[in-house]
């Protein structure tokens, strides 16, 4: 064997240049868009609150199988049907070192129900929160609520002292009124935010003082999160080992990653239901130029429903990795029933319905779509737009990135004729889907839907941007909330779903399959609600 000093020198130099930063403990992770904010009460969006779940913690949390686990509360008991007692963990500190006490829960209960908080439905306005001692908190409700804590996995507890010292105030959606909490955090979770450049990169490190150390197999010390909007770029970065975990993987790329020697796929059905929301409350339909709003007419909504060929979208765009949906909740959510069927795809019937409603020549409206929020969202949107053209409806697709898209469709703008969204019921129960998406979004029975002056107070129907309103559903939702008999409760839920399906309140599309691209030898747990819990990540040593 000949010895070549020059070439071995080259080799050594080359090896020295190989970045070892990626060795073992740094998790490099990319998704489509960035977390919207670091303030946990500003926007209820799966990725943002899932991301923050690694930094902040709630009284409870969801395990990988979505069952409820104690988190900041060690245990809880029901003293009477309206009186809950939560025993808090005693060894918890916030990232700045302050110990966690009952006062922080009281503060979080105040803040989550104040200002423009997007999580007001976590705790009814008339629920009393009382500190019994430093580590015991009572929740006293006016009506019995058997699932009070089901939605608390992403009601994160914030620190009163930190919040007051930094004057963060109430949650506010307006970007112009950023608070200290928009870019900084002080949670109790396993990771703390080290640097944050919105839209570019966020780095986090493991929090040494985390109370749960040793309870999970986690072995990562740092997390580097980069939003990568382009699907092909994400795949390329995974295959070239620049990233360890990427989400989501477009359905067309799954086979390529499965074939790769250095990466794999974890995939499964999501509990998120994709749906189209139709604007039923505005007097004129955005983008239509008409004097009236055709979508107020049930027949027109059914016509749109029937014009969408879900099976072809399923086969061609989602390549079979989805489940067409007839309901606004997925299998696995309490209250789901497979007795509900989709309205059949029927172009002729759709045209008849439009003619009956007086729109034989069709009409147009603005169709708002995102291109980096959901699996193949842009392609599905354009396909829906093309399908509606066949019955004469000109759905003008406006495809935008997440931030601009959400600004356009959420309150107060709600500038859409139709929009595509997904919903994951936080409690995994039908009630919250009925409560947030189907109840009339108005302050009381006499006020107008989405009246501008009342928007801050709307909690029931807070995500009902289409403005569907049926007083019968309001009544049922309130009954479901306080019904403690499970059979009766499920019968009420079924009744509610029958009415909303008959009303064509929404147009459910499908549950897509979440597909995670994972570098070889990295282990993690995927959750059906798409929350990425970094505590379960095990990197090769």
């Amino acid at each position, binding site marked *: 064997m000949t010895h070549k000093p020059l070439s071995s020198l080259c080799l050594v130099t080359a090896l020295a240049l190989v970045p070892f930063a990626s060795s073992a403990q740094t998790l490099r992770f990319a998704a489509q868009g960035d977390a919207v904010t670091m303030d946990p009460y500003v926007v209820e969006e799966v990725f943002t609150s899932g991301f923050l779940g690694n930094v902040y913690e709630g009284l409870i949390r969801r395990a990988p199988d979505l069952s409820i686990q104690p988190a900041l509360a060690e245990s809880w008991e029901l003293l009477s049907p309206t009186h809950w007692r939560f025993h808090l963990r005693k060894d918890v500190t916030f990232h700045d070192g302050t110990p966690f006490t009952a006062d922080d829960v009281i503060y979080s209960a105040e803040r989550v129900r104040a200002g423009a908080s997007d999580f007001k439905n976590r705790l009814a306005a008339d629920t009393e929160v009382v500190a019994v001692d430093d580590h015991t908190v009572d929740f006293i409700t006016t009506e019995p609520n058997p699932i009070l804590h089901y939605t608390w996995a992403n009601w994160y507890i914030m620190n009163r002292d930190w919040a007051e010292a930094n004057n963060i105030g109430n949650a506010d959606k307006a970007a112009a009124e950023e608070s200290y909490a928009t870019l900084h955090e002080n949670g109790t979770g396993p990771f703390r935010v080290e640097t944050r450049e919105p839209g570019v990169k966020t780095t986090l490190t493991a929090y040494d003082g985390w109370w749960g150390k040793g309870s999970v197999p986690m072995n990562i010390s740092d997390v580097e999160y980069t939003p990568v909007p*382009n*699907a*092909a770029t994400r*795949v*390329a970065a995974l295959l070239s080992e620049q990233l360890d975990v990427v989400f989501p993987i*477009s359905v*067309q*790329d799954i*086979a*390529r*990653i499965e074939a790769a020697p250095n990466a794999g796929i974890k995939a499964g059905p999501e509990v998120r239901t994709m749906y189209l929301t139709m604007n039923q409350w505005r007097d004129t339909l955005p*983008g239509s130029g008409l004097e009236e709003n055709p979508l107020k007419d049930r027949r027109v909504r059914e016509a749109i429903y029937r014009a969408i*060929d879900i099976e*072809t*979208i399923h086969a*061609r*765009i989602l390549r079979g990795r989805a489940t067409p949906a007839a309901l606004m909740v997925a299998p696995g959510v309490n209250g789901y029933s497979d007795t509900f069927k989709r309205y059949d795809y029927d172009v002729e019937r759709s045209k008849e319905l439009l003619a009956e409603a007086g729109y034989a020549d069709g009409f147009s409206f*603005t169709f708002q779509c995102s*291109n980096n929020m959901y699996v193949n969202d*842009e*392609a599905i949107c*354009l*396909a829906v*737009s*093309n*399908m*509606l*053209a*066949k019955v*004469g409806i*000109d759905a003008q*697709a*406006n*495809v*935008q990135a997440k931030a*601009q898209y959400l600004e*356009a469709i959420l309150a107060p703008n709600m500038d859409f004729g139709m929009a595509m969204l997904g919903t994951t019921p936080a409690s995994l129960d039908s009630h919250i889907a009925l409560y947030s998406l189907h109840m009339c979004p108005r302050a009381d029975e006499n006020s107008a839907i989405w009246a501008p002056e009342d928007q801050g107070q709307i909690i029931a129907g807070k995500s009902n941007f289409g403005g569907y309103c049926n007083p019968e559903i309001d009544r049922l939702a309130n009954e479901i909330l306080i019904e403690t008999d499970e059979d009766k409760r499920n019968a009420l839920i079924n009744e509610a779903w029958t009415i909303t399906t008959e009303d064509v309140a929404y147009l459910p599309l499908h549950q897509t399959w979440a597909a995670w691209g994972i570098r070889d030898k990295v282990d993690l747990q995927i959750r059906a609600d798409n929350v990425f819990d970094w505590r379960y990540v095990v990197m090769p040593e």
Partner: protein
Amino acid sequence: MTPEQRPNLFLRAYDSDAGYKFRRSPLTVLAGLILVLMIGAAMLAPWIAPFDPFDKASIDLFNALIPPAWQSGGDPAFLLGTDDQGRDLFSTILYGTRTSVFVGAISVALAVCAGVTFGLIAGYFGGLVDAVIMRIVDIQMTFPAIMVALLIDGVTRSFMTRDQHSEMAIVVIIIAMALSIWPQVARTVRASTMVEKSREYVLAAQVIGRGSGAILARHILPNVMGPVLVIATINLGVAILGEATLSFLGLGIPAGEPSLGTLIRIGNDFIFSGERWMLIYPGLTLALLVLSVNLLGDWLRDVLDPKLR
């Protein structure tokens, strides 16, 4: 003189110096042929294209992702296959080329108008006018074209509503590309004007009392147009590429309206999944188009540059 006595335009062009140089270079002939074919097909797209990509009702998702006709699974109705929405790729490329050529041609025309005007004024009058115009040109030239385009796009987005912006998207791209090209034209014209203005024929015109405007337009302009023609041709390629880049970045032409850039952007999503025709054919079209334009530009430079004669 009657028309018959005069050799027709084609023959005159054929016998000219330029015509001779053109005939002697097979590459230039090929480039010319390709360009004529592509631009012709693009302009006639509504009549040639088998499908209309703007007619949403004619697009059937059932036809999505069909490979080119000669591959297995191909359909003769879709020569180059279909995209993820079931649009015929051949038709969208024709329409896309039309958009790209349109954007390129208009932005170059605008840039030439502005560049020639300011170049003539700066070169002829000199002094303070010259200094001001040339400093603006210098500043403009320090910004790369794409950056100027991104800047304009961002600024217009901030004060227009979304609907207005998507309607204005083409105009924004045209203005952006024109802004990044005009300084080159202005510089060249200024240099030529400074040479020409001390020539005898200009002095003669001044002596007989013609106004500055008339001298610039009638006497100097025709003599500085040669280099402008070369710059314009080469920048046509730059403008087409610029449009494609902006659309690829998602800032240009809105989704659903084909331009070569948006087609390449969509195709890029399928680069790992085997449906490569969605990327290859629009990409090839863009490459051929820009290459042909550049080859013709080179030929024009050789013909018009007196030093190379």
